[in-house]
Structure formats: C-alpha cells, structure tokens
C-alpha cells in the first residue's frame, strides 16, 4: 500500500465504527478523510470544535465562504439542519459527553489507553488545541494512525512523550490492525489480510492479546 492507500484504508475502517445518529468529531488530517466513507443512508452529525455541527463537503472553488471554516481554519460547508455556536457551547458539548465518537491521530499510544499528540519537547510544540478536552469528554475515542513511523513503533507499553490524556483511548485503527484497549491491556481484534500476525507483533512495542482476534471487516 502506498501512503494514500494506507490513509484511505484506515479512514474506511474507522467509518465502520460509526452508528446512525452519532455526533462525531474528526481531527485534522487523516481522520477528516473518514467523512468520505460514511454510508449515504446514515446520518452522522460531524462536530467541529471551532463552533459548528453539520460539517459538509469541502466547497467547490467558487463556493468558498470565508466565514465557514473548520478547526483547521480551512473553508468548509454546512449541511441542511446544521448549527453554529460559540466556543463555550462547543466545549460544553465536548466535555459534557455529548460527542459519541472522536477520531484523532497520535504520535504515541500505549497499552493503558494513554496517548501523546501535542508536544515533542525541544523539537515541536504545536499545542494541544481541543484534543485534551475531546479525548476526555467523548464517549468513544478512536486513534486513527499509521502503525509505525518510518518503521519504528508508535504503540508502546507506556508513552514516553508528554501525554494528551491518561487512559482515554478505546480503540486503535492502523493500516495493519485493529486494537481494543481493555483494563488488562491491548487486544488485537483484526489484522489486515496483507499482513501476518508476526508482522503486526514486530511492529508493535506493546504486548498484544490475541484471544479476541477475528477476520478483518
């Protein structure tokens, strides 16, 4: 799989976790692509933390309204029935448990469901934005990311980078596998047919329990 195929595979697999009527927040980058795979007969309310529910398709070149943007500052559209609100309401929705699923990327995730995504000390400090609130407040947290970074694992027993949140991740979806976080560690539930169990284990720096392993969806 090339880079784009990997992203598409992950985004498509994440879309299978969504249910009709869910309020969903998709992070910037790969998670945004999940919107492309939502079945047309399903209503998903996409929330954008800068202040809207009902995020629509990217506007065509002549349809850009600079007053409608997403949390990355990019121009977007709003669907019929959509609604705008201020940042206080937006984070009331997020912290208050009114978001069903949040999908975001990470630099590291660990077997306890902790994630690191906002700082590499001495190197890169983008800041946490709304991520800390989103992972703490959402009912289900899905990490959508490539399994490794230039061949090096991103899934560990314990994150070494400063955390975005402790024990909030429910599921990790990569181009190689699907993993679920439980109280006693990480469970490998699906493997992409293009990879072997051994390849997945070798690319993961945390112990994977395989007792729940089944055919990939």
């Amino acid at each position, binding site marked *: 799989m090339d880079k784009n195929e990997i992203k598409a595979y992950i985004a498509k697999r994440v879309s299978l976790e969504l249910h009709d009527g869910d309020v969903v927040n998709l992070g910037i980058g790969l998670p945004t692509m999940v919107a492309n795979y939502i079945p047309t007969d399903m209503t998903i309310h996409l929330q954008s933390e800068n202040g809207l529910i009902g995020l629509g398709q990217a506007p065509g070149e002549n349809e850009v309204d600079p007053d409608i943007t997403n949390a990355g500052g990019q121009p977007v559209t709003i669907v019929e029935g959509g609604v*705008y609100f201020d940042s206080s309401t937006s984070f009331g929705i997020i*912290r208050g448990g009114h978001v069903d699923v949040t999908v975001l990327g990470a630099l590291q995730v660990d077997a306890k469901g902790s994630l690191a995504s906002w700082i590499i000390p001495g190197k890169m400090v983008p*800041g946490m934005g709304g991520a*800390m609130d989103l992972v703490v407040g959402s009912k289900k947290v899905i990490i959508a990311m490539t399994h490794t970074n230039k061949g090096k694992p991103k899934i560990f027993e314990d994150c070494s980078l400063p955390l975005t*949140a402790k024990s909030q991740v429910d599921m990790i979806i990569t181009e190689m596998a699907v993993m679920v976080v439980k109280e006693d560690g990480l469970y490998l539930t699906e493997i992409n047919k293009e990879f072997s169990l051994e390849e997945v284990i070798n690319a993961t720096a945390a112990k994977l329990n395989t007792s729940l392993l089944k055919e990939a969806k």
Partner: protein
Amino acid sequence: MDKVISIDNFKEHLKDGLSIMVGGFMAVGTPEQLIDAIVESNVKNLTIICNDAGFIDKGVGKLIANNQVKKLIASHIGLNPKAGELMGSGELEIELVPQGTQIERIRCGGNGLGGFYTPTGIGTMVEEGKEIKTLNGIDYLLELPLHADFALLYGSTVDKHGNTMYTKTLRNFNPVMATAADKVFVQAREYVNEIDPDIIHTPHIFIDHIIKEVK
C-alpha cells in the same frame, strides 16, 4: 452616548503592558483592522489571550512577528512558526491551555466565578501546580478565571447601541471574551441602526466602543 470611535481614537487607548483578549479561531473572526492599528502603534510587552497564535501575516500572529507580545495564552501555536521560534529563544512566554479550559476560564472571568473543576488535563503536564479534587470518584483540576484589560472582537453586524452578532463560525471566542475585559472594542463589518432583539449574540452593555470596518 455614541459608542463609535475612529481607528485613530482606538490607538489612543493603547499603551505598553496591556493584557488583551482577541477573538477568532485561526484568525477567522479576528478584528484584523484593530490588530493592524496595534502594529502601527508599536506598543510593547503585551499579554495576548487568544485561541491560537494565528499566522505570521494574519491575526495575533502579526503582533508576535512584530515583537510586541511578552506573553501569549493560547491552546495552539502550530501554524505560526515565529511563535515557536520566539518561545525557544525565551523572548516570548507561552502558556498553553487546553481549548475547552481556556474558553471556560474566560467565561468564569466574565461571569463572576472563582474558577472551575475540569477533568481535562488530569495525568498530563497541564495539572502541574494545580489543585486536584476528587468528586464522585472522578479527579478534576482547579482552573482559575482569565480577565483582561481589553477585549477586541469582530462583529459581522453591530447596531448603534453596541448589540452584536457574529455570523457563522466567526463567533467562536468572541461573545465570551465580550464579558471578560475592562474595555471591549468591536470591529463592525456592518453597522446598522438596530438588530432584532431576539437574534443578538452579545447584548450592548458589554460593548464600550465600536470601530467601523474600513472596506
């Protein structure tokens, strides 16, 4: 009382060392003409409270690039490389705050509240030095209010009384910041006699001065 002032009159209010809240999210909903006036005034040692660091040529990023900011309180600085550079060299102090915590701190500042307990940041660097309280079995951090000398807002429609609306996603931090500063200035994209009282976002009592946007 006529609340409309000129951009030159706005500049007369500026001085070194002010704390200023600036509405907007990635510079969407930011009063750019007020920011430009601050750049022209060249006042220094400002504390800026804004969702993010904007861009080098957009939003509060222009103040950072012009070395006018001593401290920035924001949730995200990733789109303005100058902010990271000045933070690295020690010329700019940056307090990174989770976005939901930042807006709620501002809300507390404007609503007479002494602080609030939030689960956001527990188990991370954000909890350092803060009180942790366990309520009903859940750990919360105590976060304190934010208040500023000035708030600078961007209204898409402002009436002569100061009643303000922010269209679409321009709203973001603007209406909350309107409540949390000693003096509140709004840049008015459109200035009208009256807005339907049912659809106003910020009641006029919060707005001190209106600066009409120069088209």
